[in-house]
């Protein structure tokens, strides 16, 4: 403890350099923690998905629809207990920049199969009873100030739905549990969209509830077999795989964001290491004097490494604090593409751990240089 004061005094020697080093570590930790939070957000859907739900889509791509006449055949597949379907709507709320996801769903079965969507019984009934009713996530409601009873008008985004605007009545503000459903979306009656659709009776994907998750592969294969060699061949997979493939549409996000985070951390490591080495070079005489006074090389190592560690941990705290402030739904809306992102405790701990690692690695070489300094040579350098 008695050396802590010495470390603090040394760190304050060049305030500007210490500040810049702390900030560079802070930025690295901030970026790392933020990117991890975004990655977690992308993966949350897959992580929180149900093992008893399988999703059927067109084998070619999710953007192509298929007839709702498939529903009966899927429902009759052995192992399937329940069925629902949904479609991407792509409407525009006032301005294309106000992006959020809207889904046309078969409401009764969808709410039955997705207990993660939490509504009060009154809200649920009001939604089911109103053909032009919709429900919005509490995150989305917070962003745009939607309240129960409000009217929302969406311009048509996909030409298949004609040119006339769609008016909706907000019948409920839903909350969520788990990561399978995000709270930044809007859900409404599939029939309402279908009435105006040029191509009637089409849907984007089916979700089937299966009785035994161990039989997911067999049930999926049986469903796809039913539509093999038809104009609407299907691809059925677990909800987790479906969510992952949805994320994969953006490219290899994990690799991209992971690479950026690693690159930032490595470059910060070099910056911090170089700064520490520069600081040691400037203090060559002082270190030699301390060695002359009897400071063992181990203590010198500890003092220099401790200084690097101190700056790095300080940077880590600033970085994590900044990430905690910035990475929250209020500041970073995700537009429904990914579930709400927030900084998890594990990301904060990892960020701080990273700052410790940067501090240890950056201080290693300068501290070793200082500990191995030949006293006489160092004193002669200035004498």
């Amino acid at each position: 403890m008695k050396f802590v004061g010495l470390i603090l005094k040394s760190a304050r020697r060049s305030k500007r350099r210490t500040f810049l080093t702390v900030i560079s570590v802070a930025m690295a930790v901030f970026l790392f923690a933020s990117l991890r939070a975004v990655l977690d957000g992308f993966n949350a859907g897959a992580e929180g998905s149900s093992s008893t739900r399988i999703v059927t889509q067109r084998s070619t791509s999710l953007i192509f629809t298929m007839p709702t006449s498939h529903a009966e055949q899927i429902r009759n597949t052995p192992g399937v207990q329940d069925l629902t379907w949904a479609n991407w709507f792509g409407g525009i709320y006032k301005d294309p920049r106000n992006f959020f996801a809207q889904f046309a769903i078969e409401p009764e079965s969808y709410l039955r199969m997705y207990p993660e969507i939490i509504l009060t019984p009154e809200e649920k009934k009001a939604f089911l009873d109103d053909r032009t009713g919709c429900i919005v996530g509490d995150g989305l409601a917070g962003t745009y100030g939607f309240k129960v009873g409000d009217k929302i008008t969406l311009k048509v985004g996909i030409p298949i739905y004609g040119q006339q605007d769609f008016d909706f009545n907000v019948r409920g503000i839903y909350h969520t549990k788990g990561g399978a459903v995000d709270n930044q979306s809007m859900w409404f009656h599939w029939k309402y969209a279908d009435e105006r659709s040029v191509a009637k009776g089409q849907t984007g994907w089916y979700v089937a509830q299966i009785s035994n998750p161990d039989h997911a592969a067999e049930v999926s294969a049986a469903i796809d077999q039913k539509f093999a060699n038809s104009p609407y061949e299907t691809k059925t997979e677990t909800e987790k795989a479906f969510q992952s493939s949805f994320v994969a549409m953006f490219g290899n996000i994990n690799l991209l964001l992971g690479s950026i985070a690693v690159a930032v951390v490595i470059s910060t490591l070099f910056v911090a290491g170089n700064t520490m080495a520069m600081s040691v070079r400037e203090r060559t005489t002082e270190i030699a004097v301390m060695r002359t006074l009897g400071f063992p090389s181990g203590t010198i190592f500890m003092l220099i490494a401790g200084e690097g560690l101190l700056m790095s941990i300080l940077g880590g705290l600033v970085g994590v604090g900044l990430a905690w402030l910035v990475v929250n739904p209020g500041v970073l809306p995700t537009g429904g593409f990914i579930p709400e992102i927030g900084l998890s405790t594990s990301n904060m701990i990892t960020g701080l751990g990273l700052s410790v690692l940067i501090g240890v690695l950056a201080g290693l070489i300068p501290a070793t240089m200082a500990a191995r300094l030949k006293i006489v040579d160092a004193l002669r350098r200035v004498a």
Partner: protein
Amino acid sequence: MPLIELRDVTKSYKRDAIDIPVLDRVSITVDAGDFLGLMGPSGSGKSTLLNLLAGIDRPSRGSIKIGDTEISSLSERALAGWRARHIGFIFQLYNLIPVLTAFENVELPLLLTSLSKAQRRDHVMTALGIVGLADRVKHYPRQLSGGQEQRVAIARAIVTDPTLLLADEPTGDLDAKSAGEVLTLLQRLNEEFKKTIVMVTHDPHAAERASHLLHLEKGTLVEQTVQRS
């Protein structure tokens, strides 16, 4: 009673595979309580001899015994511990740590001891009192004159009550008045506190304060003078 015994000490440095001799079979004995002045032209080996006595350099050959310890055979770690207990070193350029106050500079060697904070404070205030700077505890080196800086450096050297005080041209960077004050202080430490001092100097006035003088030339001892016994 001899405190320092050097026997056939030789020191040479290697530069580009060439041996450069600095000290050649130097043997000296210094009694406890002596104030030894080391004189000689530049390159005569007097600073090297002082470094060997301080245990911050090692002889190529020969034996250096200080008190009961043969320091040339100590490991680096043991030597650091020995220096902390037995050596007080005064540099020509003071070498105070600029970010530490006078108090903290003097306290520095005590951080290596098991003394409590209060005990360290007592020792530091005593040392600063001896050098006459008890009222400058919170001053940083940049706020002190050269003479005051050197007196703080002397306080740092004596704060652990070392066996041996080594001074490498302690007045070399000072004006005549400050140099006189520093020399008077060293003489007082020798006479009043019975400290054994070895001082390297070019200055004949400084040398006059020593009780014994050794003259080195080209790494060998050429003359030994007793000025006071």
